[in-house]
């Protein structure tokens, strides 16, 4: 297994290298002189020269890239132009907030999507299947920032049940933390629940028509035993893999969700950085997201191998 993980890590390395080149290359897209763009209103030649020196922009491009990559490998993503804080410190500050939001969203998605998928598959062609499919299609089509706004309007403004915005760490005040995060997590989890429902349904339909399920029924097992003990366990594997792969979607969704509910997380960090022209922060966030995505891909592969005896035997 360790050899398998090492091999997969080795395959991910060139991808990571290209990601780093692309992220570094983003600053080439800045129209005109990047230093002018970064300096904003301050066009004082001394300031421009200082920024140019600070960012080593006088060096040839490959040298600039290698210097930047060397820093990144040591955890140095540069310094935020706005706050003066190291980008890595900013990311580490904001990441736990987004992880809490993402985990809660995933729990919501699994609690809604997986049972709905099972029911839809077992009752294929029936009213429940039809309803689940319509709800899933709606979940995939609804813009989550609009859903967030509508929920704030209904739950916070009209009913006054939950706060419309804010954040409290789960380690400081768990109750307040859950109060502020329930609505954003639901909003972020809606699209994922729809995707999980569709995949669970499709995986269950594949398993339910397998020979061993027919045998289990022939042996006289009840419908519930067949579904939960024999079918669901086998259908769960692709669903677990998919959940890990949905990580990227979760982070992208978090950008908008955090913006609507004013949650000081990773997503809000990138949006604020965009408006403050804090390009080092934008680069840092994009790079970290890509590394996280590749890591989740690796975890998904390893989990698939661990859970599937046939794949384990093939190693």
């Amino acid at each position, binding site marked *: 297994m360790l050899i398998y993980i090492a091999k997969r890590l080795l395959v991910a390395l060139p991808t990571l290298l290209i990601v780093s080149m692309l992220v570094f290359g983003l600053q080439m897209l800045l129209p005109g002189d990047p230093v002018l763009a970064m300096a904003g209103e301050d066009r004082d030649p001394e300031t421009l020269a200082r920024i140019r020196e600070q960012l080593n922009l006088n060096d040839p491009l490959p040298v600039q890239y290698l210097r930047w990559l060397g820093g990144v490998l040591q955890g140095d993503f540069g310094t935020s132009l706005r706050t003066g804080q190291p980008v890595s410190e900013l990311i580490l500050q904001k990441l736990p907030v987004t992880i809490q939001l993402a985990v809660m969203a995933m729990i919501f998605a699994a609690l809604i999507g997986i049972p709905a998928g099972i029911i839809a598959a077992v009752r294929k062609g029936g009213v429940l299947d039809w309803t689940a499919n319509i709800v899933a299609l709606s979940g995939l089509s609804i813009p989550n920032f609009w859903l967030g706004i509508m929920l704030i309007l209904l739950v916070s403004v009209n009913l006054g049940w939950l706060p419309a915005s804010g954040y409290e760490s789960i380690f400081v005040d768990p109750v307040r933390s859950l109060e502020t995060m329930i609505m954003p997590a639901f909003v972020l989890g809606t699209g994922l629940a729809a995707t999980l429902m569709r995949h669970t349904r499709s995986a269950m339909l594949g398993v339910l028509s397998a020979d061993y399920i027919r045998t289990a029924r022939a042996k006289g097992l009840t419908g519930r035993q067949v579904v939960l003990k024999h079918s669901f366990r086998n259908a769960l594997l692709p669903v677990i893999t998919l959940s890990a792969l949905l990580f990227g*979607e979760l982070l992208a969704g978090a950008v908008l969700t955090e913006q609507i509910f004013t949650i000081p997380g990773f997503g809000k960090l990138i949006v604020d*950085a965009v408006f403050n022209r804090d390009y080092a922060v934008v680069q840092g966030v994009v790079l970290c997201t890509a590394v996280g995505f590749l890591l989740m891909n690796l975890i998904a592969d390893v989990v698939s191998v661990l859970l599937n005896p046939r794949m384990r035997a093939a190693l």
Partner: protein
Amino acid sequence: MTAIDMPAPRAKSRFWRKFRRNRAALVGGVIVAFFVLLAVAAPILPIADPLATSWTAIRLAPSAEYWLGSDEIGRDILSRMIWGAQASLMAGVISVAIAVMTGVPIGLIAGYFGGWTDTIISRFTDALLAMPFLIMAIALAAFLGPSLTNAMIAIGLSAMPIFIRLTRAQVMSVKTEDYVEGARAIGLGHLAIMRRYILPNIVPPIIVQATLTIATAIIAEASLSFLGLGQQAPAPSWGSMLNVAKNFLTQAPWMAWWPGAAIFLVVIGFNLIGDGLRDALDPREH
């Protein structure tokens, strides 16, 4: 027409028969057609100027005069919705066109030539796919500068790897077919083989993916405009209308109802058409 082209028309007519029988796809088609008609007819419809402000009509609730209400500076929301449809649909279609026009040729080259060309393109595609769609689009829009055109370029480039990967996979399954080998045997060049024998046979799955990606692109444009990185004021787009509406939720909730509902409907329309096209192309459904 050569013998190797013969099955195509039969398959095509079977595909259209199946697609037309799909009621959900038909509903999707009607929804999309409705919005397209509204967007195209916007200049000739008897509606108010979408940019005309009125200080006597600030944040008015829906009424006989203002069917969908008015916004924070007295503009007619119905008119802005109809003109906003142009921006949203155009952004969806143009960004997907950018993704298809860049992604398909690259995927075609990777799949057809294989070897090192394929390895390099595939690693590049993996790297692009590792960056989540919206985060990539936000980063690109940030560096390119906020505007609807740049948002479309950003969304198009972010969606490009999906088409590279899809095209590459399709080409790899088609290039070993007898008719491609035959074309090679009679001495046709690479470009002619790709254009005449490979491309026509991989178009259907690309159309399905493009339809589904239009839905994603419309949401992405609305998201970028919502964040202030897409359509700029005072020009209307559904995303930018929501961006303003979120500041007036208690005073004028209708400002938020309509743009979101329109995005939802048009996206559901494209998703239904995409699902219908995919089912019609799926041989297991025969």
